[in-house]
């Protein structure tokens, strides 16, 4: 246990250094904020354009729904990327995977540690985006004090699921070429579409709604939105579930995805070793 903790700590420190030591702290803070805020502004402009040409009276509920979902999606993009890119960057970019891999540590825990710095930065980015939305864009948000513990628990569970999914992808990327960007765009895109992040599941066809209901992140986004913006009147199709039920879904799926991540990671590792792909480079 002590080795795991030490590995996690050192990997987290390494991840932080790699993320932040290329520049001055103020520039790093700016960099960490500009990307997510610009992402939110894409949606703001989409809304502005639609209102300008199609619905002059606006739709504040739809806007708040979309904005809050998008803010929390920052976690999805950065935690997933922070997890699965570890293998590819160590293997293709720094070409250090062979040394880290043969050291007497758990590479699984090392990946989690490396992702920790990304989580820390994304907490900051999510907070900035939400505060900006509330004060400058009229996003309807109100978190009751009594809901704070539940909000914290659901956030931790959501992040746990994300880490597990990231490790699953990491296991797969042991075997694939340098597809960091395709994965970074595509997998979050999957959740973007099917998890009711920006629009309710009711917009999707039936088969799309079924996929969405099978992904735990759908419930995470739903409960987060219920806690942060209880007044939004958008039909999410999940109104039949109360908060404790959704929390239960999240607990069960966190455990299930943790198990799945271990299995996929081990399988990917096994086949990569067998095929001699652990330290391959695919630079074209």
């Amino acid at each position, binding site marked *: 246990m002590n080795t795991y903790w030490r590995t996690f700590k050192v990997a987290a420190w390494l991840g932080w250094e790699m993320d932040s030591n*290329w*520049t001055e702290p103020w520039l790093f803070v700016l960099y960490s904020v500009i990307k*997510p805020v610009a992402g939110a502004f894409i949606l703001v*402009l989409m809304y502005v354009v639609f209102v*300008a040409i*199609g619905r*002059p*009276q606006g739709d504040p509920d739809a806007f708040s729904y979309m904005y809050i979902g998008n803010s929390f999606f920052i976690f999805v993009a950065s935690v997933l990327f922070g997890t699965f890119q570890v293998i590819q960057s160590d293997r293709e970019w720094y070409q250090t995977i062979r040394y880290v891999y043969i050291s007497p540590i758990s590479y699984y825990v090392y990946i989690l540690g490396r992702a920790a710095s990304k989580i820390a930065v994304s907490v900051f980015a999510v907070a900035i985006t939400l505060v900006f939305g509330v004060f400058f864009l009229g996003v309807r948000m109100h978190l009751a004090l009594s809901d704070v513990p539940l909000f914290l628990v659901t956030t931790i569970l959501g992040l746990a699921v994300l880490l597990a999914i990231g490790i699953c992808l990491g296991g797969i990327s042991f075997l694939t070429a340098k597809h960091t960007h395709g994965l970074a765009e595509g997998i979050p895109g999957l959740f973007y579409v099917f998890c009711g992040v*920006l629009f309710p599941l009711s917009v*999707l066809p039936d088969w799309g709604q079924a996929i969405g209901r099978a992904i735990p992140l759908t419930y995470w986004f739903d409960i987060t939105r219920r806690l942060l913006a209880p007044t939004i009147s958008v039909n999410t199709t999940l109104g039949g579930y109360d908060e404790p039920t959704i929390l239960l879904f999240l607990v069960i799926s966190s455990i299930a995805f943790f198990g799945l991540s271990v299995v996929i990671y081990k399988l990917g590792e096994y086949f990569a070793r067998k095929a001699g792909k652990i330290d391959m480079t695919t630079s074209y």
Partner: protein
Amino acid sequence: MSAASVRRTDLRYRVGLNLRAVVGRSYPRIVGANREPSWIFFEALLPLLGIAAYVFIYQFFGGQALAVINQATLTAPFGMCGSNPCADAAQQALYRAAVYSNTNALVASVVLGGTMVAFWLNVLWSMASQLYWEKEIGNLQLYMMAPMNRMALLGGMAVGGMVMTSMRAVSTLIAGVFVFGVVFQVANPLMLLAVFFATLIALYGLGMMFASLYLLWGREAWNLSALMEEPIFFSSGFYFPLGGLFRIPGWGPAVAIAGSFIPASIGLDALRQLTLGSTAFGGTLWIFDVTTELEILVGMAVLFLILARYALAYLETLAKREGKLTSRHQ
């Protein structure tokens, strides 16, 4: 052999050498990628999901607007037409048709933006960052020792990148038409092709220029590329007509003008006009007319290619002088 024929032979040799370099550098991108079947899934199909999300947002907005128009109440028996109740069924139908038409035009804007996103990401990650990446993995010194012009090397990367990225761009267009039912109305296909290729040349010219600058910026290059994703998608109107930014008083026009320095923004505006008709969105969200935008794009293409040539020569000299051409992780 006369002096003139020696020069001609030499020129022919150099042209041939540089053309071979273009083919040689584009070859691994085209063939190498095709030898990795997982690439099609990861780089061409998966990213379509992100674009689909933006399509669904507009469909969500459209659905919400339609619900208001269709909802009959005691005070508005024919639903709401804007802020007022619809006068009769005919007016209601007119507003409904307008919502359908606007939603289709916005979805088409996203699909076109999605194709351009593919090229922009390729410019950032496979053009601009490429020389830095080559330095990191130790290929740059080999390129520098080879006798061809460095521009031929960058040209090969650009050609290979365009071909490689076309797969994703075409997938996006096909998905737009067949999955999302987008209707394009192309009245002037030759102009469309001219705008498209002028945009690509300008974009890749910009990428070639960045490639040299990234050698100077070193480790910041990766982060700079990451920083030029969402902010550029936003300021260049990849997912909405750029004219929307001019609707925001104060900072909106400033952001739009800054974003226009990326050729994709002007190119997208022209492509949208050519495929949706200049009357789409009531004709109020376009920047310039298509001919003017084509002229701007051609100007940008020439400018960026010239700047790329000079930047490359300057950075090569600088890097050699400071002895950093092959030093990694700096």
